[in-house]
């Protein structure tokens, strides 16, 4: 049986169709949209919280979406070991929901940054990265105004001690310095996993880098990892 992905749709989600397309057409898996007012995850094996501007980004990014009815089911699903991925606004929702530690603040430049970036894969043992076999950094686009990850020293130490940093912004040759940091994120953090390793949040958009027709396909390795770990 094909694995099944559920893509959550909040009012203001705008990368839900990108995720659906990449999963259905490129990864060849079953996908359903999950409306935020529902609480049925429709037997999904993996939940994707997509990018966008849920609830207009009012109050704080992700703050209102976090209280959508479907989030209670997703929190239970995650606590029972289910795979959950938050991309961009989805990452912000996971932080607000407390499924991942830390907060997201405005980009240091105050600019909305939309471009391809390089990511160094910091933890190759996670279920989200284990099939990224290439040594050099992967190329994935970002598009956000609030992707400046912040956490206190104690949380950062925990992230390091538990190997929870999945991706860091880097240069083409893997240097993770200020120059390769597009938004001011602490330690160049672009993506983290929870302690159990079944929940991932990342600001870059792997779903926009799957179809080779778009000129980039490194994002496919990311979804390959999830699929290989499901089987």
């Amino acid at each position, binding site marked *: 049986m094909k694995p099944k992905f559920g893509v959550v749709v909040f009012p203001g989600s705008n990368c839900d169709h990108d995720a659906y397309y990449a999963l259905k057409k490129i990864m060849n898996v079953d996908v359903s949209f999950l409306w935020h007012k529902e609480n049925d995850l429709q037997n999904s094996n993996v939940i994707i919280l997509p990018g966008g501007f849920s609830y207009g980004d009012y109050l704080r990014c992700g703050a209102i979406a976090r209280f959508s009815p479907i989030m209670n089911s997703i929190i239970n699903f995650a606590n029972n070991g289910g795979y959950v991925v938050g991309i961009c606004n989805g990452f912000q929702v996971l932080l607000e929901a407390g499924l991942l530690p*830390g907060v997201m603040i*405005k980009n240091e430049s*105050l600019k909305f940054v939309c471009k391809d970036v390089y990511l160094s894969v910091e933890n190759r043992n996670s279920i989200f990265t284990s099939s990224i076999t290439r040594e050099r950094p992967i190329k994935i686009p970002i598009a956000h105004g609030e992707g400046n990850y*912040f956490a206190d020293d104690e949380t950062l130490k925990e992230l390091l001690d538990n190997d929870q940093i999945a991706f860091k912004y880097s240069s083409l040759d893997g240097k993770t310095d200020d120059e390769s940091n597009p938004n001011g994120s602490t330690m160049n953090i672009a993506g983290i996993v929870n302690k159990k390793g079944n929940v991932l949040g990342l600001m870059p958009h792997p779903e926009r880098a799957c179809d080779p027709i778009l000129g980039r396909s490194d994002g496919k390795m990311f979804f390959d990892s999830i699929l290989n770990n499901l089987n």
Partner: protein
Amino acid sequence: MFKAKVIIKRRPSILDPQGVAVEKGAFHLGLTNIKDTRIGKFIEFTVDTSDKIAAEKEVTEYCSKLLANPIMEDFEFTLESMK
């Protein structure tokens, strides 16, 4: 019925890029004494109960669970009785 007025401030330890940018505007205005600009939020609403303790409890929960993110923000509020 109470009128609630909430002020949400970003913790001093957390960078406020917006405040830094706005302060550059003050500099361009020629206001040379302006320092440490920090941008927060002011929120007001009514609480439909005559029980002040219940109102405080509800406003505290609203602030701590939704209006403010305790990881990076502090909040304070006042309740004023409405006639």
